[in-house]
């Protein structure tokens, strides 16, 4: 092994060629880096290197009050910030034993599912872009802008919403939602159909995605997969169904499950989940409309939040999988330790295993289909 100072890698004396992909590479999404050893075009071993977006969120959380931490959760999974916000707020509410009013829970459900749709739309669009199909991205992003409009009218930000407060939500659903949702539902479905028409039966697309990075269910569980990547492997696990929170046990929705855990299955599961999310929003909205106008949106929460001593873990199903917060409180107004369990962290550590034996070009397809969000990965 000779150390190469320019590439910062050990040169292999064998015939294997070491290739450094990233951190700045058109397909590595900004901050990811993979050091792959290849035999010709085939990857013999690949090791991901992370930490290029490590911003010290957990350390910062120990120095912030409980409310001040909410904006930081926005900046973790920035594709669906609302889901991260709600995950954190629910963890603190569990720590304090607060019961959130039902109407606030419905508002949260609706906004979270909208965020899920926006997240999956970005994923499918980017997956297309990385595999050479630019058009679906442009069609999907038009619908995503409509969803962002609702977020913006809700509390004034498109991406980093700082949604909700500990104990509930700080505003009712905006008028924009009431006026837009009936048409938006159809346009989301139409955009999905268009994407479907462009991709799902396209032979070029199928050749690049079917059977690429197939993964078995046992392996996936051993590596700690959650969310769509696990469901693509054929395990029917969804925290919305298995550990129901809010009103998810009252909604009627399917959990799509794949067969082989390849890129195509991950893509299909996301497409189907968007449909299911639309259904969930419809049901939640019907329940919401039955609530009285002045139903409470906030639980009674002290101004300065000081949870009693103790620790607890709470996780919810975000678009990427299980996002959990483990919080230890020492009775002061700042958490003693916050540990974030990001979903794509566990998925990405199996990356070397996933791409082993595939072509270099398949790493790009694999990475896009896993939906690795660097802000959540490195925290």
């Amino acid at each position, binding site marked *: 092994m000779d150390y190469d*100072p320019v590439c910062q890698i050990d040169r292999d004396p064998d015939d294997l060629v070491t290739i450094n992909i990233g951190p700045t590479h058109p397909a590595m999404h900004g901050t990811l880096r993979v050091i792959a050893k290849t035999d010709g075009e085939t990857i013999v071993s690949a090791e991901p290197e992370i930490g290029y977006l490590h911003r010290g969120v957990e350390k*910062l959380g120990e120095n912030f009050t409980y409310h001040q931490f909410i904006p930081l959760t926005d900046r973790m999974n920035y594709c669906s910030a609302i889901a991260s916000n709600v995950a954190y707020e629910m963890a603190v509410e569990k720590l304090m034993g607060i019961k959130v009013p039902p109407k606030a829970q419905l508002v949260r459900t609706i906004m979270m599912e909208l965020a899920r749709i926006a997240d999956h739309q970005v994923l499918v669009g980017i997956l297309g872009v990385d595999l050479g199909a630019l058009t679906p991205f442009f069609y999907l992003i038009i619908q995503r802008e409509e969803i962002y409009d609702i977020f913006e009218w809700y509390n004034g930000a498109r991406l980093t919403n700082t949604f909700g407060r500990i104990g509930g939500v700080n505003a009712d659903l905006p008028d924009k939602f009431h006026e837009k949702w009936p048409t938006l539902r159809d346009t989301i479905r139409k955009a999905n159909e268009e994407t479907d028409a462009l991709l799902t039966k396209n032979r070029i697309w199928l050749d690049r995605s079917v059977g690429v990075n197939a993964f078995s269910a046992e392996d996936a569980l051993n*590596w*700690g997969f959650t969310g769509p990547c696990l469901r693509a492997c054929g395990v029917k696990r969804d925290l919305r169904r298995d550990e129901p929170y809010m009103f998810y046990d009252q909604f009627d929705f399917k959990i799509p499950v794949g067969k082989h855990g390849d890129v195509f299955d991950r893509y299909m599961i996301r497409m189907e989940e968007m449909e299911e999310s639309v259904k969930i929003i419809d049901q939640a909205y019907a329940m919401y409309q039955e609530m009285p106008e002045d139903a409470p949106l906030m639980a009674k929460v002290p101004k300065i939040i000081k949870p009693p001593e*103790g620790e607890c873990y709470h996780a919810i199903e975000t678009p990427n999988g299980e996002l*959990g917060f483990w919080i230890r409180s020492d009775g002061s107004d700042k958490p003693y330790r916050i540990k974030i369990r990001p979903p794509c*962290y566990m998925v990405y*550590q199996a990356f070397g295993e996933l791409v082993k034996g595939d072509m270099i070009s398949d790493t790009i397809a694999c990475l896009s289909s896993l939906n690795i969000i660097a802000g959540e990965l490195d925290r």
Partner: protein
Amino acid sequence: MSLKERVQRCLGDDVIAITEYRGDLGIEVPKGNIVSVLTRLKEDETLGFDFLTDLFGVDNLDYYAKKKKKPKKKAAGEEELVEEEEDKGPPPPRFEVVYLLQALKTNERLQVKIRVPEDDMEVDTITTIWKAADWPEREAFDMFGFKFRGHHNLRRLLMWDEFEDHPLRKDYPLEGKGEERHLSYD
């Protein structure tokens, strides 16, 4: 049978302490037995904790010091002095490693904790049981300095390789000590 009883029956004497808070069950086990404890929890038929959710370290540098101060504020006089003397004993070890387990069949969760003193930071690796522990162990090494015995690739994960401190320790300042990264070809 409740989860608590099942865990106690499965582990027997290995359970040092049990905590329950807001429905989250946590057990403390001896440091040396962690691999066997987790294997038993995984393979026990009544428990079946077969999914590792997360693994991380905690630094309790001033946690117990803060705790002791509290009665002082409330009451004054001799009474609390007596209480404090009763409390006295060897302070608990500074670090903790927490394992979050999940049973997929029954949807139960369990926190397993071990205490790690500052002068002996070696912990057995559990990558032999779950591959999912690979990066979390590296991160715990990076952030706190635990040395996982038997881990195949114990390098820094989030910080760069030349970084020397362990940033999530409580005595490390938030804004750092002015470290900069320089590459050899700069």
